[in-house]
């Protein structure tokens, strides 16, 4: 009962947030830039072209009207036309989103797989050499600039050792020998559906370096958060009580303390996912990964605001939904959350 009330409340709040997000994106993308019409009209536009653009973009309407138009367009997935390519943005998004999601999901999984267990183990051995080493690695991975790490990995594994492909999502030869029809857009899945293990292996190989790069920072954050949460929990009185009942260290660590640390661990999923989505902007440029990140970075150079706004909206809404799911999951893990 409480949980349903809690979910409803979170959903109402999320809806508020989405409205706010839309408003903010509208303001930044349509109000702040000096003259969208000039940008829309193309290079060296004449006054006539600009005037035509103003009408097309509906720039002369009062701001509230323009906002409502913008919001309803966003709601229906009508993101407009790219200033630069004149293509429908929605079509571009459909093409690029799966590549980015593939990367994001993969790197989030890596981050959690490394970060959370390391955090638990470090907390259990607090102050010993394992803890020190793990903490230092975590801090280093948090301090490492993503774009620089990407370049370093390229330098070491592709250039010097030559064991990894330099960039791209798949090799050109493989594209010819083992063509894969696009079904879901997720290359790993599509190659399996098409029954082409060579294509799958090749795609996997291309995925490793970008995913590792993106996982580095959230893995460090996950490790640190899990570690500090576990250390705090291990000092609580119910842990002492469990010890007094004669439970083993293992049982206390994984059976009693870890469930309490699920809250922070879930938070980490949200953070990792958000980081993977935005870090993609940096990583996709370097690894020539055909995803949203590269799409938006090209749009930045071209001042292609509809594209930037659309990507921001889509990614942010992904993130809001993700956070909503995490909030609900947290309430399921710890039923007290729903009571507040």
């Amino acid at each position, binding site marked *: 009962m409480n949980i349903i009330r809690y979910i409803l409340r979170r959903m109402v*709040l999320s809806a*508020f*947030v*989405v409205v*706010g*997000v839309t*408003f*903010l*994106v509208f303001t*930044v*993308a349509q109000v*702040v*830039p000096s003259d969208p019409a000039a940008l829309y009209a193309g290079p060296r536009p004449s006054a006539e072209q600009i005037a035509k653009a103003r009408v097309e973009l509906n720039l002369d309407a009062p701001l509230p009207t323009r906002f409502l138009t913008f919001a309803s367009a966003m709601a229906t997935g009508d993101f407009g036309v790219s200033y630069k390519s004149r293509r429908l943005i929605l079509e571009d998004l459909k093409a690029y989103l799966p590549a980015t999601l593939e990367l994001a999901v993969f790197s989030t999984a890596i981050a959690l797989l490394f970060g959370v267990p390391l955090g638990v183990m470090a907390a259990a051995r607090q102050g010993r050499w394992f803890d020190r080493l793990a*903490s230092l690695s975590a*801090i*280093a991975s*948090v*301090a*490492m*600039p*993503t*774009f*620089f790490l990407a*370049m*370093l990995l*390229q*330098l070491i594994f*592709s*250039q010097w050792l030559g064991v990894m492909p330099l960039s791209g999502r798949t090799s050109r030869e493989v594209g010819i020998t083992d063509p894969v029809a696009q079904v879901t857009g997720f290359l790993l899945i599509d190659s399996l559906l098409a029954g082409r293990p060579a294509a799958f292996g090749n795609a996997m190989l291309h995925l490793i370096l970008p995913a590792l790069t993106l996982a580095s*920072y959230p893995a460090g*954050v996950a490790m*640190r*958060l899990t570690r*500090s949460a576990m250390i705090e929990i291990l000092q609580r009185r119910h842990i002492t009580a469990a010890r007094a009942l004669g439970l083993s260290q293992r049982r206390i660590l994984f059976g009693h303390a870890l469930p309490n640390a699920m809250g922070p661990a879930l*938070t980490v999923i949200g*953070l990792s996912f*958000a*980081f993977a*989505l*935005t*870090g993609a*902007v*940096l990583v996709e*440029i*370097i690894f020539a990964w055909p995803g949203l990140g590269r799409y*938006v*970075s090209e749009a*930045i*150079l071209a*001042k292609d*605001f509809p594209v*930037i*706004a659309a*990507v*921001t909206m889509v*990614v*942010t809404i992904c*993130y*809001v939904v993700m*956070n909503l799911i995490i909030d609900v999951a947290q309430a399921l893990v710890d039923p007290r959350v729903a009571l507040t």
Partner: protein
Amino acid sequence: MRRVIYRLGWPGTIALLCVMGFICMALFAPWLAPYPAQGAGAPNVVAKLSPPSADYWFGTDHLGRDVLSRVIYATRISLSNGILIVGFSLLIGLPIGLAAGYFGGWVDEALMRVTDVFLAFPALLLAVLMAAAMGPGFLNSVIAVAVTWWPWYARLARAEGMVLRGQPYVEAARLAGVSHPRIILRHILPATGRPLTVQAALDVGPALLTAAALSFLGLGVLPPDADWGQMVDAGRKFFPARWWYSVAPGLTIFLVALSFSVLGDALRDRTKGPSRASA
């Protein structure tokens, strides 16, 4: 000195020295750089893209400028970038958070819903959107990052404000007839302001990382000025064949961010202040 080592431990002390070293580098760049003119941007085409050597420790860039001198000069921009981001954010976030936490009720509700909207964006993405809209430039990139940064301080300050509002000693002051502004100045601000300021000082590292990412995307300072992120980006065209161009500034960002983080951890272990986990 012994007391500092005792309080911070060895890693913390080394980190503190590094941070102080980088601040000195920014202040005394013209005296520390081997080629001050090149550091400031003068081209030196005779030595284009030479690898590291005795003359040019970190090699030279595509205009033949000494990368070491460029990195030293860029410290000024990158550090002040981080400091300004954090400073602006604190200036916005602290009052908003304290007001929300202390007054509660509809004030809290209104302020926090606004804050939530800003927090709903993955941070870098909002910064990119802002910076793209305002155009590249030093101050614009500071503002763009600060816009994504302040809500964290608002959250922290609000949590502190809420705890403090319920503290019996604050309630006692209220019951004794002390006015709200005076309670905030005398009881709330000293209790939150100081730990939050320390926290913010340590966030210069992560802030600088974010700013570097913007620069890397071409949304930071414009040439001939340089900051580290922009240098890594400029070197990317010659990467990986002329790797030194990007590696020196990249490693520098890493070192600065690492120093701030290690120092922050050392201080937090001592004071058990609020911790921030975000990017």
